[in-house]
């Protein structure tokens, strides 16, 4: 950007600043998103409104363009980094907020034997952008990790990811164990990953297969909305 084009975010009014944050988020500019978030807070904005109006709304545009093939993985990862910048500022405030505007907790992890996590990172980011509180268990998770996370976090949704045909059947092990422990009625299960499809999801009793990160986030949100809840934990 040339000096002429450079401007101070403080000079923008609230509406312009929200739009600018959304643009900066789209462009993956984490410092600018962080600064814009801080400015809105300094103007007395509620953290929930900053999250919803600036970051979540911005990520929705990213999600749509990713789904439509306008943005690709590298760009979306940059957007995720920018979103993180804003969330770093908001998270401590949201944690103390009496108003719970989260869509609920979303626990996600790559299954045992599999170290691929780009897709589930994108899902995490898209779900966070949609308003979920995401707990990412990382890679190579045995069934115990999922069960412990369910006990600890009481998520509304559990997401499992696999990139290998050899590891995807392990999702069935997790589903079976959840069934045995009576956890299925409380936790919606979603799955995703390159070699998966709806037929596979059906075969292991997972109701929701997310074909890509953007669609997964949409499905997660649709599920929570279908519960009749606007926001909040289970």
């Amino acid at each position, binding site marked *: 950007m040339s000096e002429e084009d450079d401007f101070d975010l403080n000079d923008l009014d609230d509406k312009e600043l929200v739009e600018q944050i959304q643009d900066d988020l789209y462009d*993956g500019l984490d410092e600018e998103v962080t600064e814009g978030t801080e400015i809105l807070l300094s103007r007395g904005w509620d953290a929930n409104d900053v999250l919803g109006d600036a970051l979540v709304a911005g990520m929705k545009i990213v999600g749509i363009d990713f789904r439509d093939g306008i943005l690709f993985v590298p760009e979306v*990862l*940059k957007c995720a980094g920018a979103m993180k910048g804003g969330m770093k500022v908001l998270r401590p405030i949201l944690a103390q907020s009496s108003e719970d505007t989260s869509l609920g907790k979303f626990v996600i992890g790559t299954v045992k034997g*599999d170290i691929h996590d780009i897709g589930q990172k994108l899902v995490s980011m898209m779900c966070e952008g949609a308003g979920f509180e995401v707990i990412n268990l990382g890679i190579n998770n045995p069934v115990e990790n999922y069960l412990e996370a369910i006990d600890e976090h009481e998520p509304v949704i559990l997401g499992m990811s696999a990139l290998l045909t050899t590891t995807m059947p392990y999702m069935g092990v997790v589903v079976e164990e959840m069934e045995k422990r009576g956890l299925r009625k409380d936790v919606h299960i979603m799955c995703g990953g390159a070699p998966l499809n709806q037929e596979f999801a059906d075969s292991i009793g997972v109701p929701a297969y997310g074909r890509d990160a953007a669609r997964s986030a949409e499905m997660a949100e649709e599920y929570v909305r279908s519960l009749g809840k606007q926001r909040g934990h289970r």
Partner: protein
Amino acid sequence: MVTDKKHIDPPKKRLILGCGALVYDLLRLIKQNPALSDKVNLQCLPASWHNTPQLIAPGVEEYLAENSHLYKDVYIAYADCGTGGALDRVLKKYNAKRISGAHCYEFFAGSDVFEQLSEQELGTFYLTDYLVKNFHRIMIKGLGLDKHPDLFDIYFENYTKLVYLAQTENEQLQKDAVQYAKDFGFEYEYRLVGTGGLDSVFEEIDLVPLATEEEK
């Protein structure tokens, strides 16, 4: 999309539609068997789709919709390649077969060897001849690392090893692969695996003698 209606050579009755990353290997296999070159027409789709597998099934479908009627049979030189079964659904419509396996690493190495390599080290990153030759374009630029080197950790934080599954013996490519492993800070292993399951694309075509073809 470029159709090949004008360029089709009438005697070449079979279409081999493959990933651009396999073009050198496919051409070599065709050249090794002159009988094949009379029977097939090879067309490749962009190798860059390696990084955007969601484009593969729609791309194959678009090509086949425009061109499949020009051929007797269609053979697909792709594995599932991260399409999550979407490619198979397209191929079913056109009664076409693809190479079995999840991706080219698996069919080049063979399922048993690939499984063994994965078991030895989960965090293994694979290269083929094509990917070594086009490392900068496909891996560095394709993943956006040229513009955003900070994404390296996001992509590769879980990897510790690079295995070069070579199709041909080529000293320069081996040197390059060693260098890429060093650059990425990975252990390195070289395996000369050849074209493996890629040959299966030609098996059925090869079974039909030319004479029988001409009689039809």
